C-alpha cells in the first residue's frame, strides 16, 4: 500500500499490464458459478499462475 498524507493507494492488479500477461481463458465462466441469473466478473478468480 502506497501512502501520502491524505491518500492511501491499495494494492490492486495492474489491468494495463494484464493486456500482456492475461487472456489464457482458464478462469471459470462467471455465470456458471453461484448465481446463474446475473453476470459479473469482478468476483472471479484468475487462474493464470504465470502472471
Amino acid at each position, binding site marked *: 500500500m502506497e501512502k501520502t*498524507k491524505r491518500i492511501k493507494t491499495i494494492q490492486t492488479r495492474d489491468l494495463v499490464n494484464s493486456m500482456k*500477461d492475461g487472456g489464457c481463458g*482458464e478462469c471459470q465462466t462467471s455465470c*456458471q458459478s453461484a448465481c446463474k441469473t446475473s453476470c459479473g466478473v469482478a468476483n472471479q478468480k484468475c487462474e493464470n499462475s504465470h502472471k
Partner: protein
Amino acid sequence: MIHQYKLNGYNIVIDIYSNSLHVVDDVAYDIISIYMSMNTDEIVEYILRKYPDLTQDEIIDCISDIKQLKKDNKLFSEDPYKDISLNIKSRKNEVKALCLHVAHTCNLNCEYCFASQGNYKGKRALMSFEVGKQALDFLIENSGNRKNLEVDFFGGEPLMNLDVCKRLVEYARSIEKLYNKNFRFTLTTNGMLINDDVIEFANEHMDNVVLSLDGRKSIHDRLRKDIKGNGSYDVIVPKFQKLVNSRTKGTYYVRGTFTHFNTDFTNDILHMADLGFKELSMEPVVCPPEDEYALTEEDLPIILEQYEILAKEMLVREKKGEGFTFYHYMIDLAHGPCIYKRISGCGSGTEYLAVTPWGELFPCHQFVSDPKYSMGDVWRGVTNSSLKDEFKKCNAYARKECKDCWAKLYCSGGCAANAYHASGSILGTYEYGCILFKKRIECAIMLQIARQDI
C-alpha cells in the same frame, strides 16, 4: 474515468481503467471531484472556503499528490482497451463450459421459476446418457487448448436424473487425462432428493454444489412449494446441513432468490448464516414486471440500503469470528481477473452453452426453449454462426449505455439474457440490474478496504 463514493466511513476513489484504488480523506476527496474542471487557483479557493482551517500549502501539497497519481496513470487514466474489445469480437472462441439440462422436470413447483417448473415451457424430459456423452465429446472437441472444462448439472431438478449424472462423471473422468483436460462439475439442486448416496457423490465429484434456499421458512415456503403446495423448507434444510457439514473438498453455495415479498433479504441471508451455512448467495428475482413478486421501483431504495446493511453486518460478524462469504461481495483486488475477462464477460453463446435434454444448444440456460436462440446441437455443433457472432459482440464495449459507466469492467456489460428480457435486445441493458450491480460492487470494495483495517 474515475468513480468516487462514500460508504461506511470510507472515502473511496476508483480509477477505472488502471484498476487503481485509493482511500482518501475529505479534502482529497473534494479536490479529486473538481480536479479536472478547475485550475489550481480555483481549487485552492474552493477548498479554502469549505475547509477554512487549512493552509494554502496543505491544499497545494494534496493537489501535487493528485497530479503525481495522474502522471503515474493511477488517477484519471485514459482508456487503453478499445482495440482489445475489437480483438475479442474477432477471435476464435473455444467452448469451455456447458450447462447440461439433465432434467426438464422438477419435483418442486416454485412460483417464480424462470424455467416454468422445470420444463422451460416445453415437454418434460430427462437427458439420456447418450446425449450427455455426446455433449461432453462436443465440449472436448471444441475446447482447443483450454484445460479446465466446466459442466453444470442443471434443470429442472438434476437429481431426478442422478444415474445419468453419475455415468457422465464416470465417462468424463475416463477420458479427461487422454485429452489433457480437467473437468469441473457443479450440481445445482433444490435439495428434495438429497440422501447419503447423493452426498457421497457430490462430495467426491462436484467442485461446487449450489443449494437453493430462500432464507427464512416463511419466505422460502411462500414460493418454493412442492407439487401439492406444501413448503419445502423443513425437508431440505436438514439435508443441506448434512451435505455441507460433510463436505471435505470443493465449494458450495446456499443460494436464494429475493423478490418483492422480501426486500429485507438481509434477514434471509443472516438466517442462512445462523443455520450454519457460510458460503451464501442471494439473487434478485428474474421475472416479468407484471408478476406480483416482481421487484418494483419503490423497492429499489430499500434493496440498496439492504446491501449496505449486509456489508456492515458481515464486518461485525467477522470481528466476532462468525464471518460468512456473500458471493457478490467476493472480489480479489490484487489477483482478480485480467482485462480480457473483464471485457468479455460470461461468454454465453461463445464459451458457454446450455444443452437441452434433446441435445439442442442454446447460448445459456436463460435462452433455452426460445426458438430464436437455437444455436445447433451436440452432434453438428454450433450451426447458427450469425447468432454466435451476435453473442461475440456482447462485451463491455458493445452497449452505448455502458460507454461512460464506471462499472463496465466489473460487469462486462451485464447479462445478455437480462438485457434481452428488459430491452428486447441482447445488446441492450437492464437498468434495474445495473443499479443493483453497482451498489454490490461499491459494497464489495468497501469490505475489502475495511478488512485491511485502513
